[in-house]
């Protein structure tokens, strides 16, 4: 198969775009497409201070690489979860982020959960009633809180994450199966700040297939952690991704069409609920000052309060 641009041997074939490219043209294509997506969804500008949440995985490190090459002002944030799982998962993840930051000569901020909360994620999970024994719910809640808090406190303009199209479509698929209109309404390439304690968030890779971001990382020589989180075994998101990939094999472009049609439907008001004017109203948590949909403490502070009470 030949590169569409130069006729040399192609490194990757993207059936969804009917496009095959060699290494050099593919790397260029990822950069230009990312810039296009940032502009299309008005994610951020070159004047903004950006923090990218990095996990040591391919998507977040590839995103950091791309944004740096596009001359955005971007620094990294790694959150140490304290997950071992017999493979020193968090220790490895952190070292990949540190190695990448050193090579790039970029700043990596590190927040270790066990220093912030005197507990690792698995320890917090055991003491919390959240998540029925699996740490995933506690992990997600904690990461989102820490990322938001860090970005606001340090004065960044936007927090970006490496969510790719497969992530977005798996979430969309699950929310559609359950017809979770609240979640569907809030799924977007950009989440605006609707509260002084809420950072603006963007997903510049939201239209790239996971295979595309992985190919970028490989071709760029980015070293990343291949191991999955040990708690990810049996995760619904992975199951949904496999289902959607079966569809994609038979109908190239189906995942992208699904996502784009969803965004168009959202724009046209398809997911507007009765009483929708209240959906973006957020209260302020009296403990951390962050946003919350309830009166009183936010979900994160309630969890921490409960854990601390249990320890007395």
């Amino acid at each position: 198969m030949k590169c569409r641009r130069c006729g040399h041997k192609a490194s990757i074939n993207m059936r969804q775009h009917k496009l095959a490219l060699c290494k050099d043209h593919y790397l260029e294509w990822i950069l230009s497409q990312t810039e296009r997506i940032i502009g299309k969804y008005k994610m951020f500008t070159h004047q903004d201070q950006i923090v990218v949440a990095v996990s040591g995985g391919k998507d977040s490190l590839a995103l950091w690489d791309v944004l740096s090459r596009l001359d955005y002002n971007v620094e990294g944030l790694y959150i140490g979860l304290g997950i071992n799982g017999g493979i020193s998962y968090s220790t490895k993840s952190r070292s990949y982020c540190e190695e990448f930051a050193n090579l790039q000569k970029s700043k990596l901020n590190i927040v270790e959960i066990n220093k912030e909360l005197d507990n690792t994620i698995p320890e917090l999970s055991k003491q919390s009633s959240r998540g029925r024994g699996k740490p995933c719910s506690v992990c997600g809640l904690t990461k989102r809180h820490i990322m938001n808090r860090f970005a606001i406190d340090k004065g960044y303009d936007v927090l970006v994450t490496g969510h790719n199209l497969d992530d977005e479509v798996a979430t969309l698929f699950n929310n559609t199966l359950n017809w979770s209109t609240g979640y569907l309404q809030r799924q977007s390439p950009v989440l605006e700040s609707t509260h002084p304690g809420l950072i603006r968030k963007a997903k510049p890779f939201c239209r790239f297939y996971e295979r595309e971001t992985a190919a970028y990382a490989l071709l760029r020589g980015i070293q990343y952690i291949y191991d999955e989180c040990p708690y990810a075994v049996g995760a619904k998101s992975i199951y949904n991704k496999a289902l959607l990939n079966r569809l994609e094999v038979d109908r190239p472009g189906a995942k992208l069409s699904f996502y784009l049609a969803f965004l168009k439907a959202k724009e046209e008001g398809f997911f507007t609920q009765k009483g929708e004017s209240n959906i973006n109203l957020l209260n302020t948590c009296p403990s951390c000052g962050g946003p919350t949909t309830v009166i009183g403490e936010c979900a994160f502070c309630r969890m921490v309060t409960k854990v601390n009470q249990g320890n007395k």
Partner: protein
Amino acid sequence: MTAKLVLRDQEFEVRHGMTLRHALAQINVSPESVLATRDGELITDDELLQDDDSIKLISVISGGC
């Protein structure tokens, strides 16, 4: 006369002469879920597998969170 496909710690043997795409179908691996390399270079799925080929398959699916 066979080619080898390696995915994590699993090895699969297939007849040489078929395309990578066909080989992936044979071992029940979705082409959407992996990237394939030969001698460290990415290859596309129309590539014909040669005798004694050793193709490394890299899983691209992440998730759980």
